[in-house]
Structures are given as C-alpha cells and as structure tokens.
C-alpha cells in the first residue's frame, strides 16, 4: 500500500514537472508576420515593374534613348528601397531565409545596373527578361513573408 502511494506520488511529481516545462515550451522557428514589410515588398515590386515598363514604353534604343544616365536616378532610388528591405529583414530574429532572398535581389539589381552602365543601352528583350526576373524574386520574397502568417497561434 505504501509502495503504491509512493508510485502515485512519483507519477504526480513527473506530471507536475512536465506541466512546468510544457507551460513555457513552444517551438518557434520563424518571426511573426510583419504587414509593414509585406507592404514595402509590394511597393518596391511595383516600383521596379514601373521602371522597366516605362523604359520599354517611352524610350527606344535609337539615338542613345536608353543610355544609362537617363535612368541612373531611378536605379539609385530602387536600390535604396531594396537596401531598406534588406535591413528591415536583417534585424528580425529567425529571419535568415527572407534576408537571403533580399540579398539575392540586391545582388542581381546591382549586377543588371552595371550591365546597363557598361553597355549604355538595354534591348527590349533584356528589359522583358529583367522585369520577369525581379517580378519572380519579389514573388518569392512575398511568399516568404506570407509564410510567416501560416504559423498558428499556439494552443491555449
């Protein structure tokens, strides 16, 4: 009888300790969804889209119509926005995936900017390709941010 009581007490103690652990035990692999960053991604994506669409629709390669100087200011403006997105992502804990997507976007933005500077023009085909590349990268960025939304609130 005494041994039975001791076993019950042990089980009770085990369950009590488990409760204490469980109370504070939640798996966290991702940062919380941030609506402001999501909006910033959307706005930067729109800015890039507008940049390439305007270049395609309002200029042509003839008579140096697409020389780098004509677009340098917009290149800088967009690079500032991508840099800002990168910094916003960098400071969030558990956010290495979104940060890496931003780094890749920035790397390719700078690369294609340099390409435009070197060639001092951009063909219609390359405008289409660059526009597609960045649309797809911003889509990946938005998927990552929306992915944070998939996380359910822990059960009460």
């Amino acid at each position: 009888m005494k041994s039975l009581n001791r076993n019950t007490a042990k089980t009770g103690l085990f369950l009590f300790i488990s409760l204490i652990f469980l109370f504070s035990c939640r798996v966290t692999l991702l940062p919380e969804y941030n609506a402001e960053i999501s909006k910033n991604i959307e706005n930067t994506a729109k800015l890039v889209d507008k940049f390439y669409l305007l270049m395609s629709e309002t200029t042509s390669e003839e008579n140096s119509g697409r020389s780098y100087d004509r677009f340098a200011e917009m290149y800088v403006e967009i690079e500032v926005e991508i840099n800002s997105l990168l910094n916003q992502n960098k400071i969030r804990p558990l956010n290495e995936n979104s940060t890496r997507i931003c780094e890749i976007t920035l790397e390719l933005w700078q690369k294609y900017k340099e390409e435009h500077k070197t060639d001092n023009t951009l063909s219609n085909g390359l405008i289409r390709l660059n526009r597609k590349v960045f649309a797809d990268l911003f889509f990946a960025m938005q998927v990552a941010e929306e992915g944070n939304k998939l996380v359910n609130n822990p059960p009460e």
Partner: protein
Amino acid sequence: MSFDIHTVIADMGSAVKNTVEDNWDEARSVTIQFLQNRKERIALMAQLRISGELSKEKFKRRLEDEKLILEAELNALAVISKAIAQNAANAAIGVLEKAVKAATGTVL
C-alpha cells in the same frame, strides 16, 4: 489521475498529421508557381539567345543567375516548411499539455 502514454503519443501523431495536411496545399501551389515562373524565364532566355539579343557570354551569365533565383525560391519554400514544422510541433505539444493537465486536474 489517468495518463495513458500510448493514447497520448497516438493523439500527438494525429495532431502532427492533420497540421501537415492542412498546410500542404500552400507548399504545393507555391512550388507549382515557382516552376511555372522558371519555365517562362528559361523560354524567354532561349528566345533572346536565338534572336541574338543575348550573346553567348551573357546567356551563360544569366544561367548562373538562375542558380541564385532558385536559391531564393528554395528559401521561400523553407519558410513554408518551417511554418508547417512549427505548427506540427506545437500541435503535438498542445496535445501532450492537454493530457497532462487532464491527468493532474491542474488549471494553468
């Protein structure tokens, strides 16, 4: 005080399964979209190479860029996978927590 570890483990397994199933469609649709985007980019690159707008060297460089874009897409999928893993793990912990609470009759 009743605490059947076999039932609790089975319930935890069901909770994990249900959570993964609930989120699986999201991962699937995003993967399909990424593949579609890739197809469109490669088709455009091939078209530009054929028309001569992309030189051989530039075409090679763009193929290298595709590796980076793939890395970005895999990072986006990693977020979805982590969200599923986090939900599944917390659902299992939730089941265990509930069972322990019921066994002890403790109100947290």
